[in-house]
């Protein structure tokens, strides 16, 4: 066959894309054709060149590019929210117009049929019962100056409960109107409707959660992007809330997260004390993310500050404050941040 027949198939031969018969034919031809062998070698060289020079190098450009894309995502999301709001506003306006039209119609109807409506109001009004667990049965006292029509309306609302005064103190969700000093319990006015019994034991746990004092305020320290952790670290961090969720306690989850971040950052600052695997992670993080000592320290301040606010372990607290005090006494730009945090911690464990 013509030499060009074989030469034109060298590329497909190189890629192993020819049928088996043709592959064999080309192989035989290569044994006797120097020109084709040289071309095949050059194709192999080109393949090496792609491997050596085809990849784009690491550069600050990629981080900028990623941030540009993230900013675009944020803008798109904002626009989407604005669009939704605009639609909601217009939809809301339409409902308001419809409601106004309906109100006018109702008022017109009332004006025309006022006599009939007044007669109907003198009939018995069905009562509404609210069952409230844990609260003594209460009946709002009717002030003397309330008109008969208002009296009927108030009588329609009856509150019943089998709880005690002590239970009442736990209540943080139920309406404060029920505890007003003007309320009394005239026995003849207390209704006895059928109620579904709810024992305090069933609802106290909920109240405990609701009534729990809020955690100390998070210090106003600028958050540093979580760039210092590798994807592997980040994924491991994602599992923490799941693990801590069994505690049903947001502070526990938060504390676990900050401990995790602290440990990862400490690992970055002390690579020599770590086993090989951890050293590799630390080295990769530094090389790949171009992190600096300042960034790590800044993030550590944040982590230690949260830990000191959340932990019940006095030793852990002192470990955190030692770091913060050391940083605060330094002359770096970060000392102010450490001072801000220490100020927020004043009074803990003293």
């Amino acid at each position, binding site marked *: 066959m013509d030499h060009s027949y074989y030469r034109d198939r*060298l590329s*497909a031969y190189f*890629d192993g894309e020819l049928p088996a018969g043709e592959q064999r034919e080309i192989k035989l031809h290569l044994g006797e054709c120097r020109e084709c062998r040289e071309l095949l070698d050059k194709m192999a060289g080109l393949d090496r060149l*792609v491997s050596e*020079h085809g990849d784009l190098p690491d550069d600050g450009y990629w981080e900028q590019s990623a941030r540009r894309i993230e900013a675009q995502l944020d803008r*798109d999301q904002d626009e989407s929210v604005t669009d939704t709001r605009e639609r909601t506003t217009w939809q809301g306006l339409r409902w308001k117009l419809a409601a106004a039209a309906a109100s006018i119609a109702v008022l017109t109807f009332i004006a025309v049929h006022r006599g009939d409506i007044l007669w109907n109001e003198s009939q018995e009004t069905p009562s509404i019962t609210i069952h409230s667990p844990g609260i003594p049965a209460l009946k709002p006292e009717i002030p003397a100056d309330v008109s008969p029509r208002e009296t009927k309306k108030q009588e329609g609302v009856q509150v019943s409960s089998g709880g005690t005064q002590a239970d009442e103190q736990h209540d943080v969700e139920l309406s404060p109107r029920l505890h007003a000093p003007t309320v009394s319990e005239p026995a003849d006015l207390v209704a006895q409707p059928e109620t579904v019994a709810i024992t305090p034991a069933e609802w106290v746990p909920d109240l405990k959660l609701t009534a729990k004092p809020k955690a100390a305020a998070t210090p106003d320290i600028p958050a540093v992007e979580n760039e210092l952790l590798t994807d592997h670290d980040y994924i491991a961090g994602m599992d923490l809330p799941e693990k801590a969720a069994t505690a049903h306690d947001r502070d526990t989850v938060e504390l676990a997260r900050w401990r995790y971040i602290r440990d990862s950052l400490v690992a970055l600052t002390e690579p020599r004390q770590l086993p090989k695997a951890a050293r590799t992670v630390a080295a990769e993080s530094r090389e790949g993310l171009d992190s600096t000592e300042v960034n790590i320290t800044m993030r550590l301040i944040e982590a230690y500050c949260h830990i000191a606010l959340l932990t019940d372990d006095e030793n852990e607290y002192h470990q955190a404050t030692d770091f913060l005090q050391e940083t605060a006494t330094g002359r770096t730009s970060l000392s102010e941040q450490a001072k801000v945090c220490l100020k927020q911690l004043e009074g803990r464990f003293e």
Partner: protein
Amino acid sequence: MGKRIREEKQALSVNQSEVNSAEQRLVEAAQNGDKKAFGRLIRRHQKMLFRFVYGLLGSFDATEDIVQEAFVKAYGALGSFRTDSAFYPWLSTIARNSAYNHISREERKESLDRLQEKGYDPQATELGPLERLLDDEAQVRFMKAVKALPARYRSVFVLRHFEQMDYGRIADYLKIPPGTVDSRLYRARRMLVESLKDLL
């Protein structure tokens, strides 16, 4: 005989399950609204996607736009992504769809007659902002040589060498017969071999 590509594929498959598992977690987190997880997916794949799109288009600005558009579209469509499949092929398909019209326009504009008039001249080719990102002279020369290829040859070369696609997939991708993939790739390689012979 494509040995290097096969070796690379084998090496990739060793840690593939680990990589997939980590990636799956990031995708799931992003689907649940974790923007930082999506940010990590951007940082994982943007360079590879950029190289792929740049190889197809040969224009830095157009590549930046299409890569950004691909990530934005991917984020919007994350809900429909099945986490048991790989993220990058899905992402590159989105980018490809965006780039496809651009390629078609470029190929239509570039007749073979015009190519013969212009000639293949990598040295006269400007890389623009991309040049700042490149490490050394050899890399600059290589990228210029690829960029200077006629679009119809370049797209086949990039899909084969940067995306490791076989001929059948390239044919499906570019909607051309497999025989045309073969002939275009052969010509692309001949041109590059000629242009870069002192580096080979």
